[in-house]
């Protein structure tokens, strides 16, 4: 009897030959990724619509003039400063999140707890800043379906502080609606992220991951948290810079 194995009988060991996960990624993590891809489409649709509106109008509110307050410090004259602080806070909390994931790889529970608490604080600070920003704009008269209005003063005069070129009520209204919708949807995501962070912090403290032998759940929640940061990078560019 021949002992040589024919080419067909050889056991295939390729990535896609079966018997193992071709992606080498745990199921829950794959699903988190696919959820984030779908969420990316939602945010893209919002931002692309904002771009379309802005492109379709001859004039648009100047972000440098709309966002120029620093709460508790100055009411006007400092464009981009406050949103700069917010951006820094969110990037920083993203870093503490990766550090938590990195500590999780080493099964270092204490470090995971420390970095997760830092991440939660960063998230709360960001949401707090956004609340201040919303309050400021709301006081000026911007809201869903409303723009600054003064009795007996022409709209052009009332809106003049927010425009550099021509003044348009329709543009101002579109700007207000889209600003509150998009930053609101993002803020909602951040809030959910904080909640998830608190849950996994609780699970870490309860030694759930210690018993499981893996801190993979921190990684999955971390993916979501980084995605929230990623969206902010785009919101920041299209609402505040461009």
């Amino acid at each position, binding site marked *: 009897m021949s002992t040589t194995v024919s080419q067909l009988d050889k056991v295939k060991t390729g990535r896609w030959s079966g018997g193992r996960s071709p992606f080498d990624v745990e199921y829950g993590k794959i699903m988190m990724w696919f959820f984030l891809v779908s969420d990316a489409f939602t945010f893209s649709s919002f931002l692309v619509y904002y771009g379309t509106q802005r492109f*379709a*109008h001859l004039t648009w509110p100047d972000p440098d003039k709309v966002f120029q307050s620093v709460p508790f410090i100055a009411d006007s004259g400092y464009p981009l400063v406050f949103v*700069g602080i917010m951006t820094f806070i969110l*990037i920083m909390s993203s870093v503490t999140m990766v550090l938590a994931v990195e500590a999780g790889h080493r099964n270092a529970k204490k470090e995971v707890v420390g970095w997760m608490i830092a991440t939660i604080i960063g998230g709360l600070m960001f949401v707090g800043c956004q609340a201040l920003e919303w309050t400021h704009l709301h006081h000026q008269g911007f809201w869903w379906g409303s723009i600054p209005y003064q009795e007996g003063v022409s709209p052009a005069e009332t809106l003049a502080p927010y425009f550099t070129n021509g003044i348009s009520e329709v543009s101002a209204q579109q700007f207000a609606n889209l600003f509150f919708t998009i930053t609101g949807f993002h803020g909602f995501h951040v809030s959910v992220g904080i909640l998830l962070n608190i849950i996994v912090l609780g699970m870490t403290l309860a030694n759930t991951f210690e018993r499981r032998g*893996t801190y*993979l759940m921190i990684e999955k929640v971390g993916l979501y948290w980084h995605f929230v940061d*990623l969206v902010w990078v*785009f919101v920041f560019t299209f609402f505040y810079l461009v």
Partner: protein
Amino acid sequence: MASNHQDNTAGHEDVAHHEGMTKGKIWRVFFYLLAITALEFFIALVLVHGGIIAKGLAVNVVYILLTLLKAYYIVAYFMHLKFETFGFIMSTTVVLIFVVYLIVLMLTEGAYMKSHFNPFSFWPST
């Protein structure tokens, strides 16, 4: 829970998957992100506000390129996608081509609105 543990580590023979982020690498990426953001602020506050360059298409293109660079660093390093398998990277990123398609469609639509609606009073231009 012991069986669960085994499931999760079963695929970890792959070395490339495990050489993830070290602390030093994380901080390096953080400083890249910080530097790009600082550059954006420099362009916005010093160059544009100082009147050295005018707001317009060129500046916006620079902003968008810097944004995409930041997005790359976040997705590749913080979200660890660079260290996943080729198949996984493709299955999560190639589909975003539809976003590009949407942008093209909506720019066409926007150009139509701009040229057809603006002259009428219900779409005030001034």
